[in-house]
């Protein structure tokens, strides 16, 4: 559950500062992540790419951003 007093999110397991509600697009831009290269989960729910503009990240959220790496 989002925490109203929080000033950060948990991003890939670590705290990451967030100045209030932030559009997901803005967060990705800040992180220099290209939408075609990543997938995003907020509080364990996958965010479809089409919703990146409309989705708001709130302090206290658990955010996971994944990409592809070398593997077999």
């Amino acid at each position: 559950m989002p925490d109203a007093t929080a000033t950060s999110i948990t991003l890939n397991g670590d705290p990451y500062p967030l100045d209030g509600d932030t559009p997901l697009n803005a967060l990705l831009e800040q992180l220099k992540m290209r939408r075609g290269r990543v997938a995003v989960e907020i509080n364990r729910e996958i965010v479809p790419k089409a919703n990146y503009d409309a989705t708001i990240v709130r302090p206290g959220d658990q955010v996971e951003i994944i990409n592809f790496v070398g593997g077999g």
Partner: protein
Amino acid sequence: MQDTLFELGGRKFKSRLIVGTGKYRDFAETRAAVEESGAEIVTVAVRRVNITDRGKENLLDFIDPKRYQILPNTAGCFTAEEAIRTCRLAREVGVGELVKLEVIGDQQTLFPDVAATLEAARVLVKEGFKVMPYVTDDPVTCLRLQEIGCVAVMPLAAPIGSGLGIRNPFNLAIIIEQAKVPVIVDAGVGTASDAAEAMELGCDGVLMNTAIAGAKDPIAMARAMKLAVEAGRLAYRAGRIERKLYATASSPLTGLIG
């Protein structure tokens, strides 16, 4: 002898070699080896992005998803739930529905957890994924996975990264005989003859990573594997001679001098 194309999950491929992208020195070497292997399907792993090193290069800048069919794996997952979550995330990156399902049951052997693999496959197939499960070389499990609706079955030749080659060719032969979906040997290949053997047995394809990436010269080994898969496939289609205990002369027995 014109071969048929390799059909997998509704797409057709010329190459029957699937290669991984792990354990290379850098992305440039990964790209060079993949290119040399002639593979058209390339496995990748799904991991958290590196937040602290944001300028880092991305694998997909080297392995173009427009040119290669990207096959995300669920390596490192020990439960059906983790594997399902990983597949859902992988699909959202936007490279299609094909996934390599692996649910590991034991850290030391990396053998699959068969029950969890079946459980995850059921859910993923229902959700529209084209599932390619890494599985033990067990004919019954391969049948079950086929019944569930997996687009291929991928029995292991030997433990992942072991390079031991095909430990149980007879089980593989049974799996191949029973299969209505492509059979791809996944894991355990050590060198070119192992890949050729898999294809000679009648496998539809071979998937490997360490055998190429871990070779002294990965680029040369990539080419060796390409040739081995092609040679093994051709030998399978050509139809080998029966094994016999005694000799049969190759030269005429008549017209001998003197």
